[in-house]
């Protein structure tokens, strides 16, 4: 599996858009890839929200001298 970040995904999606314009891939494939990208975007939104929550917890801990931690739902390493 190739590691992906936002920028590489934008480049990939633009490449696919170009391929679609040149009829190198069909609409169905493009749609499926678009839907997959949507899922990746949802994960990214989750990561951004998580980072924001961590910032909020840091502030809370600093103000109230607390030791709150963001619970990891997926704590197991696969």
């Amino acid at each position, binding site marked *: 599996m190739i590691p992906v970040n*936002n*920028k590489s*995904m*934008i480049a990939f*999606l*633009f*490449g*696919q*858009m*170009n391929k*679609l314009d040149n009829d190198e891939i069909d*609409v169905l494939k*493009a*749609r499926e*890839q*678009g*839907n997959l*990208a*949507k899922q*990746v*975007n949802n994960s*990214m*939104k989750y990561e*951004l929200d998580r*980072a*924001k929550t961590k*910032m*909020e917890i*840091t*502030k809370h801990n600093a103000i109230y001298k607390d030791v709150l931690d963001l619970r990891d739902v997926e704590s197991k390493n696969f």
Partner: protein
Amino acid sequence: MESVLIEQHKLITERCKDLINVSLDEDVVFLRQILNKSKKELDEHNNENLTVVDVTSKESGIWRIVIKNVIYGRHINSLVGKLSKHIEHDLVDFVCDGDKMYDKKNTWNDGWYYYEDKLCNTCKNKLEKIERKNLCIENNIQKIRDDFHEACNKTIFDKDLKLKYVLLSRNIKNHKPNPLETAIKETIHNEIAKTFQEQNEKLIIKYS
């Protein structure tokens, strides 16, 4: 070499557009031919390299609006929403004999007008207190907006991201975006949010 040519074509299109506005009618046709030739070259370059070398000022403006919309949606709106809940709008509930003190025909804030001189001292104090509280909240909201607005302007976004957005917006100008284009748009929005979040951690913590 190619980049020099592209710069030349950019210059030609800019100059031609200016000249067309002030030229004689018989010269306009000639100028349009030159303009179209350079435009064609730029379009071909854009298509080949999946980029946009001739971003217009309008497109730059739209890009700035997109940035603000993303930041407003992900940071400011929730903060403003939380604060706005505490603003008291229905001041009629706070005064004695409200019907006599207010006149619906005149307008004041949300359609009510009150005769301050007719209020009893207790009500006057109550109103003053509420108005002070409302003003304080409104000032806080404005401060949040100003701070984020300033942060938006100071944040350095990847230049390529802007070009990609402009390219996308040109592509979807004449049709409804397909799932692939929608995904690109969302990815660009995420990248904007990520960049902002990375560069403005202190501001976000301040208002969290």
